[in-house]
């Protein structure tokens, strides 16, 4: 039994747990940054920027994430290589699209053709992070856009009355206050992000669900030292427990942050907190 649980394949599933956690950890701040950019663009004074922000939010949110993942990574990869190709090989003669093939010069390959495996893996991981961040950035943008509008107008007007410039009002008044309005939406987004990780294998990252399927599937004696029947059920049960625990822990942590943020805010929650301590 102990031997079975420590085969190389099982080691892979343990590593994939770390991979997933790492991905979540990296994606969250990047998605938030995208969201912030998107929301700021969507309420910009400059019309093209505003259109861009709104279109980004509407289009990416309108499409099921799974459909997006199925073609977007390849497109992203080709875009990166296309740009590098244009910069690095200006005197390349052949066409880039040869029939069905997408051909760029060797120097433009990402990563380079002779790069070791771990570089390929990290690059794939990076693309997955970026794709996740773009999708969830759109949702975050939507949340932040709402939150910025939820900050009471009086607060902003007061800032203007104090002679703050628009820039100052934005950074000193609006941004610090919007978080408390954004947090419920953002925490849900985080929950959603956790639950989107089974789709990672579409992006070429072998996640826990991929390994659970691989390990749980029926194994015939010819191809393994540990033949067994269809054990997917048990592996998925373990995954279920993992996800439920992770959700629970996230809920507790987010509740803490919320009570921190509400502190001293002009909202019902802040009022209740003030009364409780008074």
């Amino acid at each position, binding site marked *: 039994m102990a031997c079975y649980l420590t085969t190389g394949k099982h080691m892979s599933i343990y590593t994939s747990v770390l991979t997933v956690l790492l991905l979540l950890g990296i994606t969250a701040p990047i998605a938030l940054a995208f969201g912030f950019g998107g929301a700021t663009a969507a309420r910009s004074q400059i019309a093209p920027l505003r259109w861009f922000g709104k279109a980004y939010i509407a289009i990416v949110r309108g*499409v*099921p994430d799974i*459909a997006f993942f199925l073609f977007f990574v390849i497109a992203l990869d080709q875009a990166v290589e296309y740009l590098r190709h244009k910069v690095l090989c200006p005197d390349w003669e052949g066409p880039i699209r040869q029939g*069905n093939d997408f051909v760029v010069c060797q120097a433009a390959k990402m990563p380079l053709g002779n790069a070791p495996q771990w570089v390929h893996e990290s690059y794939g991981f990076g693309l997955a992070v970026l794709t996740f961040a773009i999708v969830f950035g759109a949702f975050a943008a*939507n949340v932040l856009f*709402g939150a910025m509008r939820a900050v009471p107008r009086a607060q902003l007007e007061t800032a203007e009355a104090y002679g703050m410039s628009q820039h100052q009002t934005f950074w000193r008044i609006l941004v610090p206050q919007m978080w408390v309005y954004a947090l419920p939406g953002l925490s849900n987004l985080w929950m959603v992000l956790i*639950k989107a*990780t*089974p789709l990672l294998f579409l992006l070429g990252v072998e996640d826990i669900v991929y390994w659970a399927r691989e390990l749980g599937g029926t194994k015939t004696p010819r191809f393994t030292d540990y033949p067994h029947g269809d054990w997917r059920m048990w592996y998925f049960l373990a995954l279920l427990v993992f996800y*439920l625990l992770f959700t629970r822990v996230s809920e507790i942590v987010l509740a803490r942050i919320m009570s921190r943020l509400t502190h001293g805010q002009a909202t019902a929650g802040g009022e209740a907190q003030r009364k409780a301590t008074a």
Partner: protein
Amino acid sequence: MSCFQTIQDYGLRAIGIGERLLPREDFTLCHQFTLIGSGMIWNIYFGLLALTLGFFLATALAMGKASSRTLFRKPSEWFIFLFRGSPLFIQFFFAYFLFLNLKSVHPFFEPFTAAWLGALVVLFFNTAAYSAEIFYGALLSIPKGDIEAADAYGLSGWSRFTRVIWPTMLRLAWPGYTNEAIFLFHATALVFFSGFPAWQQRGDALYYASYFADKTFNPFVPYPILAFYFILLTLIVIAVFGFVNKRLNRHLPQNTRQKIRLRPNLIR
């Protein structure tokens, strides 16, 4: 073959009407649009029914979670936690497995292993759990004055619920609920992708999109078509829910009416 002919042949292919065989060569844009559109029938079917059924269960669950009786509260809390805490992917897997086993116990469960019912049940429970959480949040933020006023008018029990609490709860929850509806429609794409088998090549939009991607080896046409359909669907959902929102808020003075703000309170 004209595009009109194609629509006649394949427009209802997803529910088994029309040509028996899927197109196997010369994939035109018309083919792809028609078949993927035909698959949307399933997405709409799952989304609409799960949403309608889930609405009622969600109300019950929200009331249960807000109840002071442990007997009602605990099961509701656990139901909501279980379905909100796990990926839909895994829910589909377990549901299919469960229905298969139940089937051998009693023939009543026979149809549950087919997507049209089995997946519907999962989506129904799933959306009920998510909506219940939204409704619960709204329930807690009903102004105290409203309930006191109802008491003062001598309303109690059922009539207090249907006339005061329920409408107010809906009004408050509506923006969040709109988002849930959008996400439910997106979630329907997972049905044939991971959970349930497709019979006789009748599948949803994603099933046909991946069919074309597989046959043409070019993902850049079918998936954007799929995306186009879903954006369209999302716009329709937003429009319908916006209309309902207007009705829910029609008694309020013009300037305090709550605009439907797509601020996702709860999303999948």
